[in-house]
């Protein structure tokens, strides 16, 4: 937004006119009650005490702890700052927002007028007060549903979203998988084998790189069919990725609440596992759980490269294995590399370590205001972190695209 743009006139706050009768006669007084007045006098009520849990997350970045607030009924989680936790504790249904704001000022010596409405929205979204959210894409579609095309897309997404093959009774299955061999993945021997495979895969990959052209020739005239098969096989390994996340949960004696298949936002087919219970444990457990899933791609990628290396040069098997290996390794990097604007496992590890759970959103918001020249002039530690995230992510995405272009050119030549 440019500086010359006119500021929109704020919408008039709604008022209700109420007639209040006197006791014992027909006399009355008429009062106008503004919504703002009613808002500050409202008494927000959090859900019942048995419906939520609170766990502390120490932060190394801001010097203040963060908190995980969990809705135990819906399994929704929310990250709260220390002041937000203070406000949450006041929302007992008896204390008005005005009193809560006063208590906040007495405790912190200052008051941010947005903090309570923002927190209430967060709580509503997590169903810790009321209401449920939808994705931003669906919000955008809902806003434009008057257009027939948008309406059709929305209807299609709604239909796809209803496809959800899942079970909430999977803890026993995951426990059994863990008992019958899954536990090996979390032993020093298991980790050593994975790392050895990774090194062997790297060596194989480097040797294969030199013969890229000959290997791709193995697809012959069936390149499209081969690519589809590679993608399909890769998709199956996404399920393995999620299963290993679940095994990590069992390893840390937490509960796998759900496993299934759905269309994320109505159009992204994906397997998923509910690992939210891990938030109630240590940071180490959260990091191991996040990384273990991605390790599936490292191990499988290495195995494919080794298969490719020992397959006849120029054969379909070699081409297929090499392409699968490359896809798996790329998936490994994308999953663990935090600077790519995608909130994958690596990103969650990073924000956990930094103690800034909304790093991407804050960084993008700051960058947006910087572009609009609306950002404050100060450039402290926080701004440096945001700038670092945006710059690194931009460079990384550009490098990723360039690498893939180079890969195609190298294979084609």
């Amino acid at each position, binding site marked *: 937004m440019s500086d010359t743009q006119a500021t929109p006139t704020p919408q008039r706050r709604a008022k209700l006119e109420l007639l209040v009768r006197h006791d014992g006669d027909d006399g009355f007084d008429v009062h106008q009650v503004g919504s*703002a007045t*009613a808002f500050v006098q409202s008494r927000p009520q959090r859900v019942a005490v048995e419906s939520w849990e609170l766990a502390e997350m120490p932060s190394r970045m801001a010097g203040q702890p963060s908190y995980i607030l969990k809705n135990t009924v819906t399994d929704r989680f929310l990250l709260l700052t220390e002041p937000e936790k203070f406000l949450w504790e006041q929302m007992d249904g008896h204390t008005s927002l005005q009193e809560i704001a006063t208590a906040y000022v007495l405790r912190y010596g200052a008051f941010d007028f947005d903090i309570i409405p923002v927190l209430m*929205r967060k709580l509503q979204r997590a169903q810790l007060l009321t209401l449920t959210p939808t994705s931003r894409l669906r919000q955008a579609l809902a806003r434009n549903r008057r257009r027939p095309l948008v309406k059709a897309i929305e209807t299609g997404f709604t239909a796809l979203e209803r496809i959800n093959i899942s079970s909430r009774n999977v803890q026993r299955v995951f426990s059994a998988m863990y008992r019958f061999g899954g536990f090996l993945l979390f032993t020093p021997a298991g980790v050593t084998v994975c790392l050895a495979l990774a090194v062997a895969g790297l060596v194989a990959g480097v040797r294969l790189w030199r013969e890229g052209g000959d290997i791709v020739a193995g697809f012959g005239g069936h390149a499209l069919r081969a690519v589809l098969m590679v993608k399909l096989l890769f998709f199956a390994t996404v399920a393995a990725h999620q299963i290993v996340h679940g095994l990590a949960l069992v390893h840390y004696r937490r509960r796998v609440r759900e496993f299934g298949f759905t269309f994320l936002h109505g159009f992204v087919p994906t397997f998923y596992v509910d690992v939210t219970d891990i938030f109630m444990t240590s940071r180490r457990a959260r990091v191991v759980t996040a990384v273990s899933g991605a390790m599936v791609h490292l191990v499988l990628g290495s195995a494919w490269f080794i298969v490719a290396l020992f397959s006849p040069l120029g054969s379909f098997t070699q081409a297929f294995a090499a392409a699968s290996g490359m896809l798996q390794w790329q998936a490994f990097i994308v999953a663990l590399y935090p600077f790519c604007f995608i909130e994958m496992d690596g990103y969650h590890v990073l924000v956990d370590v930094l103690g800034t759970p909304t790093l991407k959103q804050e960084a993008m918001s700051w960058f947006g205001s910087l572009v609009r020249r609306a950002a404050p002039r100060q450039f402290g530690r926080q701004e440096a972190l945001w700038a670092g995230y945006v710059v690194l992510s931009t460079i990384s995405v550009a490098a990723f695209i360039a690498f893939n272009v180079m890969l195609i050119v190298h294979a084609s030549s």
Partner: protein
Amino acid sequence: MASPAQTLAFLREVRLFKNIAEPELGTLAATLRERNLKRGQVLVREGEAGEEMFVVLRGSMVISKAVTGRVEQVLARIGPGDFFGEMSLFDRSPRSATVQTDSDATVLVLDREAMRRLTEISPRAAAAFFHALVQVFIERLRASGDLVAEVTRWGLEATGLDMDAR
């Protein structure tokens, strides 16, 4: 008390009677009763039976609907030339709202029998009356829709509910 000429002159300015010809309006005016009210007096009480409609000649009145306990929501404030209670001319349902003066006031009362006579004597005058009444009904229906929206907005703002994010 207003003279018949004053009443007739007043009725000519009331939207409901504007399209009624002079002789028929004169006949109708003769059937209207005048009623004086003190400040704070309840003329119509929500839930009670009624067979009359009223036209405000002088003063101002508040129309309200019970919400809870001693609290009622103010639906409208009306003054000279405005009318209310017309629903009772057509159905025998209880009054839908309470009407109370907030100053000394005078109203003209039109009952169901007078309405029936007008329809019999002058169908043209009755048609003009009903046409004007339907137009007012439509306006009030639209206003009710706006009021519902405004009350909903009030509720959202008052509770801090964020429906945009849904």
